[in-house]
């Protein structure tokens, strides 16, 4: 009797295993699909763009002739945009996170703010572009400047930064705060000397990841009116500008296939920048984990 019972169990398990195997295969396939698509895209772009990549391309200004056109002004525009965006969004994001995490009471207003921060993170980027156009470009008279672009991108990345900052502040062990209090530290000093230094790598990880998303954003930048033909380097934050995705978009929209080669090369530059930023973020996260353990 007992043996039979076990035998039955075995046959059931064999059945389960078959189903499990089938599911595993389906799921592996599901993983492969986006991977293959990505690989095809990358290879296609690389084949088109790599021959065009060179010092001339990186240091040249746009031109009517595809073979002479370079990427310097959009590259500079994107770099300055990122720096300005970080300079605006980082203090605002950390400030908001400190307030929400450490000082805000648990009440309806806080709950409302928290829900809306998550909602804001999901708003399509073109909406931020329209907001930036109305608020910064027109109402605040910033014009179609780098500053207006950075302010717009800051609004867009702020929710992500706030959420990342709160999460890494929450990861700081409570017994370290208690240790600081027990040594006669007040709350603000504890936040400044213990909580922030320990959560900074995590916060920076969030900032870099959100910036690497922002650097590829085209819609808000076009909406607030980035130029598509800029044959000069910006001389101030009020200067008009162009950015990598805008330039790429412009090249792709042209009928001549020579410009499509430029676009492919531009995409490679953009991808390399994003990969570098993401690697930096991963390295920082690793450092944070090592410091807290």
């Amino acid at each position: 009797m007992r043996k039979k019972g076990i035998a039955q169990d075995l046959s059931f398990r064999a059945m389960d295993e078959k189903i499990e195997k089938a599911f595993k295969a389906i799921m592996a396939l599901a993983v492969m699909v986006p991977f293959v698509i990505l690989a095809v895209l990358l290879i296609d772009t690389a084949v088109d763009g790599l021959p065009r990549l060179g010092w001339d391309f990186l240091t040249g200004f746009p031109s009517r002739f595809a073979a002479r056109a370079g990427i310097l002004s959009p590259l500079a525009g994107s770099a300055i945009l990122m720096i300005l965006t970080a300079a605006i969004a980082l203090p605002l994001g950390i400030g908001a996170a400190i307030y929400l995490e450490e000082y805000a009471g648990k009440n309806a207003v806080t709950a409302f703010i928290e829900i809306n921060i998550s909602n804001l993170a999901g708003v399509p980027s073109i909406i931020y572009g329209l907001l930036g156009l109305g608020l910064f470009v027109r109402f605040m008279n910033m014009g179609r400047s780098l500053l207006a672009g950075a302010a717009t991108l800051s609004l867009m990345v702020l929710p992500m930064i706030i959420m990342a900052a709160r999460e890494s502040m929450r990861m700081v062990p409570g017994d370290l705060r208690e240790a600081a209090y027990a040594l006669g530290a007040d709350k603000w000093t504890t936040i400044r000397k213990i909580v922030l230094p320990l959560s900074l790598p995590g916060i920076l990880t969030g900032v870099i990841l959100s910036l690497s998303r922002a650097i590829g954003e085209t819609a808000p930048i076009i909406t607030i009116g980035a130029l598509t033909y800029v044959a000069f380097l910006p001389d101030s934050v009020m200067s008009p500008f162009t950015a990598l995705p805008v330039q790429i978009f412009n090249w792709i929209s042209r009928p001549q296939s020579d410009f499509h080669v430029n676009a492919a090369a531009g995409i490679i530059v953009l991808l390399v920048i994003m990969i570098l930023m993401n690697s930096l973020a991963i390295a920082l996260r690793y450092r944070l984990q090592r410091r807290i353990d």
Partner: protein
Amino acid sequence: METIEPISGHKEKGGDEDRRDYTGIRDGAAVIKTVALRAWFGSLMALKGVDILIAAGAVTAIIGPSGCGKSTFIRTLNRMHEGVPGARVSGSVYFAGQDIYDPKVNPVMLRRRIGMVFQKPNPFPMMSVKDNVLAGIPLQGTRGSAGDDVLERSLRQAALWDEVKDVLDKPGTSLSGGQQQRLCIARALAIEPEILLMDEPCSALDPIATAKIEDLIHSLRGGITIIIVTHNMQQAARVSDYTAFFYMGELVEYCDTDTLFKSPHKTRTEDYITGRFG
């Protein structure tokens, strides 16, 4: 949660049911005095009215079964208890001529005079051994750097100097568990507190590390008042002058350590120290 079986034939030994304090400590010799001290976690009353006098310069052990309120008690003495969400305190704790629960008292300033060592060693992970010892200075917002004499004195007091004097710039977390705990003791001593609260400081340590900490408690005796929570009754017997036995949020018996372990006045105490419960 422990429940004690009523043990038939046992009655309170001393005729006086209400008496708890058998130490004979006078008000004048006490550094801390609590009156009707109650503490809550939300609706749970974890301390149910504790009156106790802590003798200045002595080592006082707090013993009792798990959950009886030992940690809660010492955390009310430096106002750490109220940091827990929903936690509340009533009654009075007199220290340095003031009720520390008077609204005029700033808990931050109080904690600069009453240090604390926790159950789990908690050195600051981003700081070196040296910076950990001296962490109280920046954390108290004092400018300037304390001399190396504070560093060496605190580490010597914590019986750690010889082991770390060559690795002062290494991360505090790179030390062994026992060394980390002595580092935390040095860190607490560096701010020169009048009282040191220790919540089971040896429970995460091996016997050798424990012996080192017991030795350092011995050497600190007299200079500083120590209140130590411990689960280990041998340890209480070894290091303390007075022992307080807590049970279910109440102080059951408070006595000099020898008497408490040799001939306790209360049946509850005797049951606990002989291992009949807890």
